[in-house]
């Protein structure tokens, strides 16, 4: 599903703050798309447009695959089953008595399945996020650890097998290990039924390592977009819009000042590889 958005503007109330200004963006199928920007730059508001939770104030075109979100007859329920949305701190939306019921919630809303089918899909979803189905299915979601809660919440979104997965700061509040696990989960999902991933993040290092494309938001507008290496390479004054270069970006700059020029896409692996290559050439 390709996502096309043209000249989207969103303002709170009639005379309220404009959260998103004249934003145009196309996200192709298969992309691992990163959206970065400081707090209040309109990232979260923008992604909520993509499954119709927020309606644009004015917009020329907003389509997700075959769904036209500007059409009044748009079938939001069907759309939302195709587009999974994981909010920030998704564990705060858990409510059911057992993990099984909570994960099955979305499934029951979207389609009427037999008991066996439901069980099969819930089991799959729980196993996809790396939890033990038999052990966990009858536990109360409130008895789990923080990391497990988040996994269960994500399973609750994945259970309908969405083609597009949108995540708002999925790694916030997790320790480095949990973060790594989550990102590798996203990668394995990207290789299976999830075709497109859109991830809002603060962390440049994560974005550079994992995203195929990235858009920088600043005050409700797109400041810059493209492949991560292009965006970060070229950009001076990232700090002025409240962002930082990835660590490799700073290293590259420091080395350039010393007269060493390294061609790299700024992922750690590639950077180290090229650095070592350069060192070998030099010696």
């Amino acid at each position: 599903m390709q996502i096309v958005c043209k000249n989207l503007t969103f303002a709170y109330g009639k005379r309220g703050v404009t959260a998103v200004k004249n934003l145009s963006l196309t996200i192709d199928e298969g992309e691992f798309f990163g959206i970065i920007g400081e707090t209040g730059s309109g990232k979260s508001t923008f992604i909520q447009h993509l499954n119709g939770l927020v309606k644009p104030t004015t917009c020329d075109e907003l389509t997700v695959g075959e769904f036209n979100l500007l059409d009044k007859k748009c079938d939001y329920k069907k759309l939302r089953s195709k587009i999974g949305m994981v909010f920030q701190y998704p564990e705060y939306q858990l409510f059911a008595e057992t993990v099984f019921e909570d994960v099955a919630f979305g499934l029951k809303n979207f389609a009427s399945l037999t008991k066996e089918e439901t069980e099969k899909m819930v089991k799959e979803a729980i196993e996809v996020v790396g939890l033990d189905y038999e052990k966990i299915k009858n536990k109360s979601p409130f008895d789990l650890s923080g990391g497990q809660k988040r996994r269960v919440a994500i399973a609750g979104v994945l259970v309908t097998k969405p083609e597009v997965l949108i995540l708002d700061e999925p790694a916030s509040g997790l320790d480095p290990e949990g973060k790594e696990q989550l990102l590798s989960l996203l990668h394995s999902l990207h290789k299976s039924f999830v075709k497109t991933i859109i991830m809002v993040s603060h962390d440049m290092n994560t974005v550079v390592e994992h995203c195929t494309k990235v858009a920088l938001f600043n005050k409700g507008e797109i400041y810059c977009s493209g492949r991560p290496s292009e965006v970060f390479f070229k950009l001076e004054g990232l700090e002025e819009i409240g962002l930082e270069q990835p660590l490799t970006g700073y290293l590259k700059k420091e080395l350039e000042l010393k007269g060493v020029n390294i061609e790299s896409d700024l992922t750690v692996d590639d950077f180290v590889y090229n650095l070592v290559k350069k060192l070998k050439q030099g010696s």
Partner: protein
Amino acid sequence: MKDVSFGQYYNTTSFVHKMDARVKILLSIAYIVAVFLVKEFHFYGFLAAFLFIVLTTIFSKVPFFSVLRSVKGILFFVIFSAVLQIFFNTAGEVVFSWKFITITDKGLLKAGFIVCRIMMIVMGTALLTLTTTPVELADGIESLLSPLKLIKFPVHEFALIMSIALRFIPTLMEETDRIIKAQKARGADFESGNLIKRAKAMIPILIPLLVSSFRRADELADAMDARCYSGSKGRTKYKKQRITYRDIIGFLVLAGLIVGIVFLNGV
């Protein structure tokens, strides 16, 4: 959901804003009494009370529109009581009659006065909340209720509960908004179905909200503990409440209003 604001404080500095919250609360109550003191059909008494609210609004620098808007919330109540008077008051001369409906001049007049009365009372209290921050208001109430300490009523705790509740309303609103969106993204449907189905649909919102309220309460208690909160004993105030010349002027003007109304009633 975002537009809902509780505590409609209008931020500016003015004569009325600078008045002591305790005095303002007392004067608001006195004003309500004054409005009720006006005898029915005494036009000048109403005019005096109305002029008072207009002048106070001007001195408070709050746009008149904001004060009027406060009536919107009880508009139904106002219309209801007016209609009741118009259709069911049979005293006075009949001005309109059709089948079982009779409208009298007295009924119309009385409806008019009731509308004026309610509007003035609401505007008076709205002016209080428009010119006083929730914190000042809570402090003021605490101070006014302090005589109740004599009968072991936990006045300080009561005021604290009140200000915490006020403080957390916007936070909980935001949280509710987020949870609604999250469940909607999972296909929850709050708009269709019968009453029972809709009530059931609220569960996925209410439970997370309840859980997070307890979590917040717990965290807040810990934070207060960490800063050595130990109740009202020996606690001092950052903002001391003080009676100034403004409060005396306010008091004198309102006293004048009440005397005037009583005098006009006698005429």
